[in-house]
């Protein structure tokens, strides 16, 4: 066919045009393609940069957050001068500079069951750079329902996972991860850390798989999960088959519309009543409930299990909080009194949930976790508290 690429585009994509698998037809194909990137963080940054550089004609971007200084160690779309700005604006500016031929469609929203189908249905491929389980299940289910390929990537510490879900003949995310993990037990990157260059590898790989899929070349990652352990520099490949009993993509699906994914993942809104433990002491409390407990007859001892550097930046010592980093706590749990109820806190409620469970296993009966951690406390109760 006659190429509609301009002479500057021909020059720009010269290294693609000489590849047998791309060539002028493939490059046209990319120009006609529409790819949605969900999240412009560690994964979305390199993914969007490479998709734009490759000449994907239309890039949809979903992001509601602003650039934080702590993002810059890995989120290469954003720069120092962008701190405090919307990630979406920062990304648009950068992507325009990378490739002005790309049309960017911004969505300054949090993806939800209400808006996901309307947004996703406009695209040919979805690249997931989200940072939480509810959004991952939401993106998966929406992709299956709409029949759109779902390029999956996730990262934590030194580990990455990549696959291609929701394509004909292949599995979906739920074929592998049928049920979400118990809430608060899998830490986030904010809590457990993430090696900066790791999302560079995983997000770039997601872009690569999306582009291959659009071009229809090579072997897609369908039915294959790539696991990267960057600390030992090893890749592992696990075969994942489509599960005929999968509730979403199986032979007799039970999920035929989007659900409430926060509830599915066990995340209760903070105003919801706390879940009662066997002995009637709540297993987890919201910031508001904690405030009530602290002002009540038998106020709990607050135990902050974060590391020293986190404690120094801001803490609840003025409310009697005791600092006992997780490692010290697990080494010597007898340091905590059995006579008082205990409420464990950390930055977002994950490490403290583990600590609370550990103390219950040690026979403590009145033990709760602050759900959402000190970040939620700062948001709802004490805005001047610094939580890193």
């Amino acid at each position: 066919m006659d190429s509609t690429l301009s002479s500057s585009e021909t020059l720009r994509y010269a290294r693609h045009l000489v590849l047998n698998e791309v060539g002028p037809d493939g490059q046209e194909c990319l120009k006609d393609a529409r790819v949605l990137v969900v999240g412009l963080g560690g994964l979305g940054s390199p993914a969007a940069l490479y998709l734009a550089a490759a000449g994907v004609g239309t890039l949809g971007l979903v992001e509601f957050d602003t650039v934080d200084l702590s993002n810059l160690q890995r989120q290469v779309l954003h720069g120092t001068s962008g701190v405090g700005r919307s990630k979406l604006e920062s990304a648009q500016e950068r992507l325009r500079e990378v490739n002005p031929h790309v049309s960017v469609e911004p969505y300054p929203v949090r993806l939800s069951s209400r808006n996901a189908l309307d947004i996703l249905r406009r695209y040919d491929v979805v690249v997931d750079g989200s940072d939480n389980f509810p959004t991952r299940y939401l993106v998966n289910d929406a992709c299956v329902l709409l029949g759109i390929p779902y390029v999956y990537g996730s990262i934590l510490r030194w580990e990455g996972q990549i696959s291609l879900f929701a394509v004909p003949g292949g599995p979906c995310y739920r074929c592998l991860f049928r049920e979400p993990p118990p809430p608060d037990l899998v830490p986030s990157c904010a809590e457990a850390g993430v090696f900066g260059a790791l999302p560079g590898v995983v997000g770039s790989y997601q872009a690569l798989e999306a582009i291959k899929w659009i071009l229809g070349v090579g072997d897609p990652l369908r039915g294959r999960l790539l696991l990267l352990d960057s600390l030992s520099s090893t890749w592992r490949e696990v075969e994942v088959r489509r599960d005929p009993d999968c509730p979403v993509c199986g032979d007799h699906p039970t999920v035929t519309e989007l659900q409430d994914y926060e509830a599915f993942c066990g995340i209760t809104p903070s105003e919801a009543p706390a879940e009662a433990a066997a002995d009637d002491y709540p297993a987890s409390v919201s910031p508001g409930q904690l405030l009530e407990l602290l002002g009540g007859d038998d106020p709990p001892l607050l135990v902050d299990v974060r590391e020293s550097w986190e404690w120094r930046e801001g803490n609840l010592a003025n409310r009697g909080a005791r600092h006992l980093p997780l490692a010290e706590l697990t080494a010597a749990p007898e340091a905590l009194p059995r006579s008082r109820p205990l409420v464990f806190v950390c930055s977002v409620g994950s490490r403290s949930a583990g600590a609370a469970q550990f103390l219950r296993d040690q026979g403590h009966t009145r033990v709760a976790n602050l759900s959402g951690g000190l970040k939620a406390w700062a948001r709802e109760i004490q805005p001047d508290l610094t939580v890193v």
Partner: protein
Amino acid sequence: MSHDLGTIQVLLNGKDREIPGGQSVQDLLVSLDLRPELVVVERNRQILDRNRFPEVTVEDGDTLELVHFVGGG
């Protein structure tokens, strides 16, 4: 039930491992210091229902892949 309670050979995460025989998938995860609710187990290319971890015995020659929940982005 396995009668041989000696050691068995399995392929665990792509590596040959010798482990005690007669243990359940649940036992194996616990012996590896893993929380069963945070791991997906693929045994001989089939994903195991989590509820069956305690009742499924790891057999000699099994291929096991353990995959963690990773949600960060």
